[in-house]
């Protein structure tokens, strides 16, 4: 394993120093591990807090700023943050209108955010939570921890963030966040696994002819191992999985997301096929992102996320946003 780190134990702190130095629009509490919008808390505005393990950058810290998150708490690499961080963040962004926790559906994230929410309530902060669970690779049944939260987290953060910016009340922001999640689906494919620094080697090994279908963003193996093939076919496998879950139609927002180790060149090749697939199904990608947004360290591969838009969602997606990872309109 070769990585640009100082030591395995200081990764998160060292990263936060870099984030603080790179982005004057953020305020980074390195001690407590919270990244804030510089102007948090905003009086009368619902505060949006998210967080999760490190290793998925720019998620979540790169989505803190005007029109998106008010604070993000990074955990250790691939490990959910702890309740103390979430409580600290919630206090720091509460402008009297309450706080929305955006939680990806992983046991660790859920349990820690639950504990935090309880303790926030004890301290008089109104908290609502939305669970993101967009990954169709996981069977949503009593026999699993439920679907994982992956690419749609970005959709939820952007769209709920835009609504919060208008001064909408907590219940409404939470409802909309929930709606975005319900309208979104994702599926991921890996050509190689990432290497967790503390583990020192890739979480799984794939030969030159194998790929993993239905991977998450933590290096966990996928649902099935399959043979490597043309980008075109791989893209279709991913889109089929989504379309089988909820038939695609109408206006959509599409995220063709790199997992961290795949060049943009290849992402565009995959995106070309995703766009063609949507057209075939009579759906249209009216808004799109192609790039590394919700990554898994240096994993090679991609995930595709589709949100079936409404006029309201399109409008809120288009609203100005100013974060290190997503910016337009200002």
């Amino acid at each position, binding site marked *: 394993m070769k990585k640009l780190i100082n030591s395995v134990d200081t990764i998160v702190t060292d990263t936060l120093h870099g984030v603080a130095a790179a982005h004057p629009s953020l305020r980074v509490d390195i001690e407590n591990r919270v990244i804030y919008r510089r102007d948090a808390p905003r009086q009368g505005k619902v505060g949006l807090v998210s967080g999760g*393990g490190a290793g998925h950058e720019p998620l979540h810290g790169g989505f803190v700023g005007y029109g998106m998150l008010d604070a993000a708490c990074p*955990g*250790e*690499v*691939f*490990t*959910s*943050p*702890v*309740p*103390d961080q979430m409580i600290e963040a919630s206090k720091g962004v509460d402008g009297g209108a309450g706080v929305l926790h955006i939680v990806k559906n*992983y*046991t*660790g994230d859920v*349990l*820690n955010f*639950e*504990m935090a929410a309880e303790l926030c309530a004890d301290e008089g902060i109104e908290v609502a939570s939305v669970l993101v669970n967009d990954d169709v*690779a*996981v*069977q949503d049944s*009593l*026999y*699993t*921890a439920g679907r*994982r939260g992956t690419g749609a987290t970005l959709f939820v953060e952007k769209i709920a963030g835009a609504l919060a910016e208008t001064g909408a009340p907590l219940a409404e922001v939470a409802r909309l966040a929930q709606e975005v999640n319900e309208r979104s689906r994702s599926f991921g494919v890996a050509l190689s696994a990432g290497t*967790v620094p*503390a*583990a020192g080697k890739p*979480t*799984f090994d794939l030969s030159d002819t194998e790929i993993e279908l239905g991977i*998450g963003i*933590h*290096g*966990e*193996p996928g*649902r*099935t191992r399959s043979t490597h093939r043309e980008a075109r076919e791989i893209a279709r496998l991913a889109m089929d999985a989504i379309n089988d879950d909820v038939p695609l139609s109408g206006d959509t927002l599409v995220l063709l997301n790199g997992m961290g180790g795949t060049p943009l060149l290849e992402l565009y090749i995959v995106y070309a096929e995703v766009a063609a697939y949507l057209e075939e199904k009579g759906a249209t990608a009216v808004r799109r992102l192609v790039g590394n947004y919700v990554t898994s360290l240096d994993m090679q591969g991609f995930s595709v996320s589709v949100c079936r838009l409404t006029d309201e969602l399109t409008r809120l997606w288009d609203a100005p946003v100013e974060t290190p990872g997503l910016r337009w309109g200002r």
Partner: protein
Amino acid sequence: MDTSFFLAWIKEAATAVQAERDHLTQLDAAIGDADHGANLDRGFAAVRQALADTPPETPGAVLVQAGSALIRKVGGASGPLYGTAFRQMGRALGDAPEITPAGLVTALEAAQEGVQKLGGAAEGDKTLVDAFAPAVRALAQAVQDGAKLEDALETATTAAEEGARATVPLQARKGRASYLGPRSVGHEDPGAASTALIFAALRRAAGQA
């Protein structure tokens, strides 16, 4: 069992987790995200630090403090789960300065209940509960049968280890491994493995007392 007994347990557990750190992480790499060893090692280091910083006066305080430190430092699924386990144990012990074997059993039962309430896992779901529950049951039985503490804990440790091994053929229904569906079969659950380490540490603490 007095305060120093419980401090010894924590110390033994911390040492075992550190020694087995890479093994736990490898188990987690197979069906999870390759961090369980690092998580618990970081957690127990924090526990020892906390106990050194403000030395607790009762067995209950040792465990509540340990649990709180785990919740504060671990994150992931195992942080809240183990944290809750130690905290519930500590609460069940109240402020008694000396704990009987029966008292230990009651506290561990409270811990198990806390873990299952929080995580929603039943036995057979391929989680740490699969090591925890049989260990607590075996201990309760042995204590009830009037076994010596050391022997009772030996029985509990064996049950935990067997429980952990028995997770191998199971398909996970909780936690990260459940995403794998049938592919989770054939691997030992990392949390069950660490639970067995923690029971073995308890057994060693009793040997020293």
